[in-house]
């Protein structure tokens, strides 16, 4: 196989439900970050999030599945429906054993789990619903997507925090090289329940800003951490021969993928982000000059921003390929983040325009990068690099190219 083809996408984010609405707002610099309701954040340092306001699961997911699933899985099921429709794929017309699914998950079904643990604590074991056994579990979204759509081929879940959305694409490529024709790949996350909120408070990376404007400002001199968000994207990744046979319009290709892991922080050794980027470029058989835009991890934690900016400058030269971080409008989506960035990169390649990073008032002069800020920038785009770093030391990068 040459390169996997992307033939469809489904998206949910704080600034748009459905790819069309989300992409329009992303290009217009419309942020979805705002205060989370008081029940969720009372007494916590961080109070802002990129919640998806317009997602009513009952409108998108069969009632019986709403009962059995967490919000994160409901989002994944909806995004899958949209991605399949976008790709023009009806699964029942395929050999089901040649259809696969792989998602990332960082926090599982935390809202469902919190509700059931509440019942356990208040009313005892008999009050815990049977569906807790599957709804919280990291693989739940993959499993429910598989069951609902009849995807009986290879499937799996990757738990590499923010890197998982990209690692899922690497795994999808392996499945396509093996014997799958079509793989649903990507990730969603819905980690805004009180329990999930607590889990994130002590990681030291959350923005505690009170005003949404500038609360998540990667590479800014005043960068003060990231704002968590919910949502993500599912992508239809198709064997190029299968896409060609059915004459499917191709959004872009997965030219390269690589993953590296960082040394333990206490060793003082340098991180492996640059090695990851170099390896992804080598895998894509392209040179740094062939990359026209970078979708950055953009954690908005100063030393981590510095590390990423340095790695990018080392690879692309100071002020080299333009860098952007539309996640400044959606929040950091964990497993959903890499997948959403890939969706953005594919539509950027399609429309020949780089979506902006918002909220950055003053780029830190230590960072030798050309950050696309405030307004979308038209540009000749042939290839895009998407970078993601997962908490705990995961790095992943993909190179995408236009058809």
């Amino acid at each position, binding site marked *: 196989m040459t390169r996997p083809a992307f033939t469809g996408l489904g998206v949910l984010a704080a600034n748009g439900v459905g790819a069309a609405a989300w992409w329009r707002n992303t290009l217009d610099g419309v942020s979805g970050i705002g205060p989370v309701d008081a029940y969720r954040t009372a007494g916590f340092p961080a109070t802002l999030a990129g919640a998806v306001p317009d997602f009513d699961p009952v409108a998108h997911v*069969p009632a*019986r599945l709403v*009962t059995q699933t967490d919000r994160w899985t409901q989002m994944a099921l909806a995004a899958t429906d949209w991605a399949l429709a976008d790709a023009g794929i009806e699964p029942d017309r395929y050999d089901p054993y040649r259809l696969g699914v792989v998602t990332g998950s960082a926090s599982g079904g935390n809202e469902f789990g919190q509700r059931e643990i509440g019942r356990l604590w208040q009313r005892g074991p*008999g*009050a815990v619903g*049977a569906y807790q*056994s599957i709804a919280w579990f990291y693989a739940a979204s993959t499993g429910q997507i598989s069951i609902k759509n009849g995807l009986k081929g290879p499937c799996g879940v990757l738990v590499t925090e923010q890197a998982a959305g990209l690692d899922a694409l690497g795994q999808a490529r392996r499945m396509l090289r093996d014997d799958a024709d079509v793989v649903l790949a990507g990730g969603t996350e819905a980690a805004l329940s009180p329990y999930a909120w607590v889990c994130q408070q002590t990681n030291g990376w959350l923005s505690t800003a009170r005003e949404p404007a500038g609360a998540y400002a990667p590479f800014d001199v005043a960068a003060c951490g990231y704002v968590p968000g919910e949502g993500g994207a599912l992508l239809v990744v198709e064997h190029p021969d299968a896409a060609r046979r059915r004459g499917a319009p191709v959004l872009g290709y997965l030219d390269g993928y690589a993953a590296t892991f960082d040394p333990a922080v206490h060793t003082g050794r340098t991180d492996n982000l640059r090695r990851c980027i170099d390896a992804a470029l080598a895998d894509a058989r392209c040179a740094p000059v062939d990359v026209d835009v970078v979708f950055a991890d953009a954690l908005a934690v100063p030393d981590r921003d510095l590390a990423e900016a340095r790695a990018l400058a080392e690879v692309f030269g100071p002020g080299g390929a333009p860098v952007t971080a539309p996640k400044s409008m959606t929040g950091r989506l964990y497993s959903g983040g890499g997948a959403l960035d890939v969706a953005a990169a594919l539509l950027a390649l399609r429309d020949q325009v780089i979506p902006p990073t918002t909220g950055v008032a003053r780029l830190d002069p230590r960072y030798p990068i050309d950050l696309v800020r405030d307004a979308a920038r038209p540009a000749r785009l042939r290839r895009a690099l998407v970078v993601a770093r997962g908490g705990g030391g995961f790095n992943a990068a993909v190179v995408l190219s236009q058809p």
Partner: protein
Amino acid sequence: MGLFTLDDLRRIMRAVGVDGTDVDLDGPIDDVPFAGLGYDSLAVLETQVRISNEYGVRIPDDAVAEMTTPAAAVRYVDDLLSTVGSR
């Protein structure tokens, strides 16, 4: 007899929330295997838990394995309630 009826079971099955499938629970479901009604093993387990909670009886897991149809479940639970009531 009559302490637990098919209509009681229908009510609890609806609360489990597997409806929305093609199956009409109001129809002659007595001898249709639960799987055929769209109730997989977890849905049956959930039904068992809800019956136990509402009626204050303990239904052992191995008994659930024997209750493959609504009729069998109604018979078992009704017998159980009668036994408890006559003690």
